[in-house]
């Protein structure tokens, strides 16, 4: 994927490399002496480790950027280079905006003093003034959920409480750029959800996010782009689903990682933005949306019944397979996603061509443009054929409600509240016209 240069970037890494030197016991004195004599320690250590090699990327303002890779692939080093904790050996990193790095939650806490005092010091470390912290103090404590213990020394806290407090302080610093290193993996499920919700809120507010994580689901869910590092070098960068998928294929040991052969794509040709990848052993030949009578649809009214139809071609029989469908709003938000695995269908055989139908009796969506992803993959996520944005459809409605989902509903009023119901056709007419209609004898 080619990187387009956008001037209004949040982070720009330009051919960044980081080499760690491993010193033997004897050469330690040389380190000090030479470090004093010349700035760029250029003499011979026992071994050199290239932690990050020639990595370049731009991250736009407000973008969520995921970094994935095996243990020891340089992810955390890259994050430390961005944060300024480490200096690159060559190349340079430019950062625009106030950075908060969550590399280890509560790293600055002192065990002997209370939670209250630690909030103050941690906040100052992260760049707030005393007054700013005092004004945010209650929000921080509420978010952490440990108010009863706030005046106890931090050494009495459980590790969960520790992490809660650390996260609470860090997100209340109001950074413009938030760097997160594998911290969402800690804490209980509830807290983890709370963190993700907070991160989504920050993303919504336009905070630039950089994640390092092994939780690939989060990368798919939260990130706009992903970077896959392998032994310090960029292997892939771009669409998170595609990068995660490529990574999973590599990790699961599949050599064949070529995208499905482009032999067909009749219905989806119109959808220019379609992205497609996978091993091609099973192919989704045609994906269409049909009404209950079997007619192909591109536009539908709110609440109509639709079926997602996939014609499947099998090039190599499979025992482990999952069919999935995702519906996305044009702005990228996932409206709904499911697959056969989630809904409890155990794969039995896939040895010949067939058709998969997902029947939706009533698609209760608000007016707008939507897109569908269809995929067939293994249960651990290795794609046979993943067609992102394979088709697009428009939902029309005369009611200008907002959001994406319209639950079936009615209104009831009693007591001193009354309305006069207007015919559907007359809805959304200008107020002056409505008034005129109302006053007609």
């Amino acid at each position, binding site marked *: 994927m080619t990187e387009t240069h956008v001037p209004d970037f949040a982070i720009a890494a330009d051919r960044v490399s980081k080499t*760690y*030197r491993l010193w033997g016991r004897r050469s*330690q*004195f040389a*380190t*000090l002496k030479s*470090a*004093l004599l010349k*700035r760029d*320690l250029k003499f011979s250590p026992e071994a050199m480790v290239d932690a990050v090699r020639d990595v370049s990327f731009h991250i736009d303002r407000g973008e969520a950027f995921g970094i994935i890779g095996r243990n020891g692939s340089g992810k955390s080093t890259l994050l*430390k280079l961005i*944060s*300024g*904790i*480490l*200096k690159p050996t060559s190349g340079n990193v430019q950062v625009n905006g106030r*950075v908060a*790095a969550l*590399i*280890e939650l509560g*790293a*600055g806490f*002192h065990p*002997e*003093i209370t939670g209250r*005092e630690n909030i*103050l*010091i941690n906040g*100052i*470390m*992260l760049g707030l*003034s*005393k007054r700013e912290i005092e004004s945010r103090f209650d929000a921080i404590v509420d978010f952490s959920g440990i108010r009863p213990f706030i005046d106890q*020394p931090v050494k009495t806290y459980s590790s969960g409480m520790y992490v809660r407090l650390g996260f609470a302080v860090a997100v209340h610093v109001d950074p413009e750029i938030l760097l997160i290193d594998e911290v969402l993996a800690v804490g209980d499920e509830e807290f983890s959800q709370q963190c993700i919700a907070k991160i989504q809120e920050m993303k919504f507010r336009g905070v630039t996010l950089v994640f390092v994580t092994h939780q690939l689901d989060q990368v798919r869910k939260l990130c706009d782009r992903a970077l896959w590092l392998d032994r310090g070098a960029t292997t892939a960068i771009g669409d998170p689903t595609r990068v995660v998928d490529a990574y999973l294929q590599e990790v699961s040991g599949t050599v064949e990682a070529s995208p499905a052969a482009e032999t067909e794509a009749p219905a989806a040709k119109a959808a220019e933005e379609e992205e497609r990848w996978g091993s091609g052993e099973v192919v989704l030949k045609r994906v269409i949306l049909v009404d209950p009578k079997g007619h192909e649809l591109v536009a539908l009214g709110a609440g109509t019944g639709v079926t997602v139809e996939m014609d499947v071609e099998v090039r190599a029989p499979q025992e482990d397979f999952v069919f999935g469908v995702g519906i996305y709003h044009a702005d990228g938000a996932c409206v709904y996603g499911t697959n056969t695995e989630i809904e409890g269908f155990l794969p039995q055989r896939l040895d010949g061509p067939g058709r998969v139908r997902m029947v939706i009796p009533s698609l209760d969506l608000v007016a707008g443009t939507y897109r569908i992803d269809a995929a067939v993959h293994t249960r651990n996520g290795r794609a046979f054929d993943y067609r992102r944005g394979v088709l697009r459809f428009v939902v029309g409605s005369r009611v200008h409600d907002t959001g994406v989902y319209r639950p079936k509903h009615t209104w009831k009023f009693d007591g001193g509240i009354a309305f006069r119901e207007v015919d559907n056709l007359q809805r959304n007419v200008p107020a002056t016209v409505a008034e005129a209609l109302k006053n007609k004898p």
Partner: protein
Amino acid sequence: MNELAILYRYRQLIAALTARDLKARYRGSILGFFWSLANPLLLLGVYSLVFAVFFPPQAVRPYPLFLFAGILPWTFFSSAVLESTTSIAGNAGLIKKVMFPAETLPLVVVLSHLVHFALALPILFAAMAIYAGFGMATIPLTAALVPFLMLLQTIFVAGVVMCVASASVLLRDLRDIIANLMQLAFFITPIIYLIDSIGSRPLRALLRLNPMTPFVVSYQDVLFFGHLPGLADALLMLFYAFVSMAAGITVFDRLRDTLAEAI
């Protein structure tokens, strides 16, 4: 003077960390902050006993006051420098995991020991008042100059501490080297004896080369003898404070980028 700008920018952090250091030190102990007063008091008692009972008679009287005037600034210097050897390595979590201005750590060590020093001074003045009550001493007016001496000494100590703190990350042996040097340095600084009581001229000149000598002698001048520090001592103090700070800034600046890796 990039280093000084950083220190100024993080003054709130330095203040908060110093307060934390002082609080954390005595948190959980029964006497708490009282230990800051008790430690010098006990020290005064022990030295008075040893030198008044076991090794009498002394050339200067009352000897405990003389001793105390020199030993307090010495303790400030030696304990700050000793503690600085672990100040950065002991906060590895901060240096490696947070974007943390490492230069604040040695400063926090200096300031928290300065507070201990300042808290011990009232004990000295109380002891002076008691001796004065018996007509054996007076509280000299020159004692008002102590804050100036403290300022100069703090600059001097801060410079040494910045060198030691950053260098000991790369050279762990420095901790033991300095611990032993301090033992020796205590005796080549005129604390338990008067520098003028040293007979041999070359030896006296050697003692004068010790950077702590003009500081300790000046404290004794203003707190015990009640006269102004000598011009030579004053110039030497200014010189050492400046050189030490310049060296501290240079060394720290050179080593700063390697700290996060070397810890």
